[in-house]
């Protein structure tokens, strides 16, 4: 699905990613954990194509395409989805209208016919139910006046609508109460299939009780320094990151 090799990236002259390697196969869920400032969100931003970041070295192969060579929108059209850590409010732009435009531009890119209004509305009804998003919210301006939990649910709703190959959830669990967390996790689990994959970036093991990862990686100082199964997350929750730093120092 995605193969990241020796990825180096900097912002404003400061190197954040320093040779990151990661491979995710179809059907897998990977969790990336790590202390603040390790480069977790930078990784998400670089993969989604945020222009503030400069990739200085390395390669990313996304299902045969050179991801770093694609514009942001083409990455999305190839099936990459980023659930934002801080979903932005866009007053006046309707959630529904913009999603229909997005779906149709993705279809056009794949040389498919546009979705009919009827099919689109049916899809909206089905997917908003999945994340328990009030259908009124679905038709409002993007995230405008949404609570923190509603914004995150809206991210998963959009993910469900776009049905990506690879979803990257950037701290989607931060700031959610346990009910909202359960809804978000439930949505992710329902969308999981053998053909898609998920990268979950998180601070907390708590989310991983609900979204069970196949692999847990520790990102530290711009690199993946340790990889294990889901039990690694429990160990990190209990002991923090100092022991990993010590391990590295030795």
């Amino acid at each position: 699905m995605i193969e990241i090799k020796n990825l180096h990236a900097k912002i404003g002259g400061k190197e954040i990613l320093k040779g990151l390697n990661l491979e995710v196969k179809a059907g897998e869920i990977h969790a990336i954990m790590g202390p603040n400032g390790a480069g977790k969100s930078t990784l998400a931003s670089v993969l989604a194509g945020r222009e503030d970041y400069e990739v200085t070295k390395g390669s990313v192969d996304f299902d045969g395409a050179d991801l770093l060579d694609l514009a942001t929108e083409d990455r999305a059209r190839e099936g990459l989805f980023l659930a934002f850590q801080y979903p932005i409010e866009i007053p006046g732009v309707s959630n529904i209208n913009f999603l229909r435009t997005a779906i149709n531009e993705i279809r056009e890119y794949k040389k498919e016919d546009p979705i009919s209004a009827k099919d689109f509305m049916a899809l909206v009804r089905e997917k908003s139910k999945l994340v328990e998003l009030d259908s009124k919210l679905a038709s409002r301006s993007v995230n405008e006046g949404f609570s923190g939990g509603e914004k995150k649910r809206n991210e998963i709703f959009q993910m469900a609508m776009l049905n990506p190959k690879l979803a990257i959830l950037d701290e989607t669990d931060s700031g959610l109460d346990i009910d909202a967390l359960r809804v978000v996790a439930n949505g992710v689990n329902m969308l999981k299939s053998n053909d898609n994959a998920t990268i979950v970036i998180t601070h907390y093991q708590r989310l991983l009780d609900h979204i069970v990862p196949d692999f847990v990686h520790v990102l530290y100082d711009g690199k993946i320094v340790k990889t294990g199964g889901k039990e690694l997350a429990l160990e990190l929750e209990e002991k923090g990151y100092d022991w990993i730093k010590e391990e590295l120092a030795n």
Partner: protein
Amino acid sequence: MNVIIPKKAELASKLEATTIPVSSEDKQLALEVIEKTPLPTTRTEAWKYTRVARIGKIAFTNQQAKIKSSIEKYIIDFSAATLVFVNGHFEKELSSDNLPEGVSWNLLSALDVLPKTKLKLENEIFNSLNTAHLTDGIQLTVAPNIVVEQPIQILHILKGTKVISNFKVLVNAEKSSQASIIQGYFSEEGENKFCNVISEINVAENATLSIDKIQYEDEHSFHISTEEVSQECNSLFTMNTSTLNGGLVRNNLHINVIGENCNSILNGIYLTKDKQHVDNHTIVNHVAAHCESHELYKGVMDDKSTAVFNGKVFVRPDAQKINAFQSNGNVLLSDDATVNSKPELEIYADDVKCSHGSTTGQLDEEALFYLRARGLSKHSAHQLMVSAFIGEVLDMFKNKNVRSYIDALLQERFGWE
């Protein structure tokens, strides 16, 4: 000592004095003003950001002309009664035979004498030019107590090189009447053409009048339009101005609120590109108490285009209990686009609620990234953001046909879908 003699403008040099029965006093004064008044320069406060020197160097003429394309494409609202003018001359064959019941009309050329103008002529070369060289125009009267459902649209098409149309619209909405008027300004071929239009509008006691104005002349056109409105007590007046094309466009919208308990609504959008220049000057003059005015203008400028917004609200000493709100927002899409925004309030009464504000910025990069990360092209993301921005103004337009026509023009000119 050197005496600087102001250079006389060329613009009227080839024009004959009007044969329309303008009041002789107005005509005499207007001719004198043209003779002795140079064009305003950027040293004139009201023209600080708009250079009109180019207009002064052209010796304009006026001719009748026939339009090439079918009138259909200029029809803004197919449900409306239509009056068509080309270069200021009435086109009977292209116009509706009848106006709705309760609306009477006359061509200005058919009147015995025009009412004396309410506009200032001294030092005002464009007002004087319109008065002394008036091409033709229309007088509309809405009878008292009549509610006119069908809109009346006045379409003006400018055609030909160095052609000028000094066009005039007189509207009298009588007591307790209700009507809506659409004004559309378009153009066909020709360089350096000039539409110089004046509307004098009276909204009588308890009357409701709304005007939707669409300006879509091409980039080789000059357009100066002045609306002089008076509102008597308990009246409601709405003016929606949409400037979507035109080389140099200047709008002067003056509303004199002389009666109590009036409501004045001024909405405007302007979208510019290439080297266009669009200038909106508005004045709301609150003379009487217990009135409200709401003004919202928004603009989006691309390429090397320039826009000006100057909105003035006066609250005179006797105008207590006034609520006057004014807001202007601008988005610049390119590094070379410019806007000069100047909201002004002058308050001489002490029990009023007034606010004004002006913002200028670029589209939110973070929002654009968000939309693109969902698969939208840069173009679609821009368009969605811009249309959300001006949508706040367009949502105020009550006539849905006008709204659809504007959407179609946005598609034609800016590639919106």
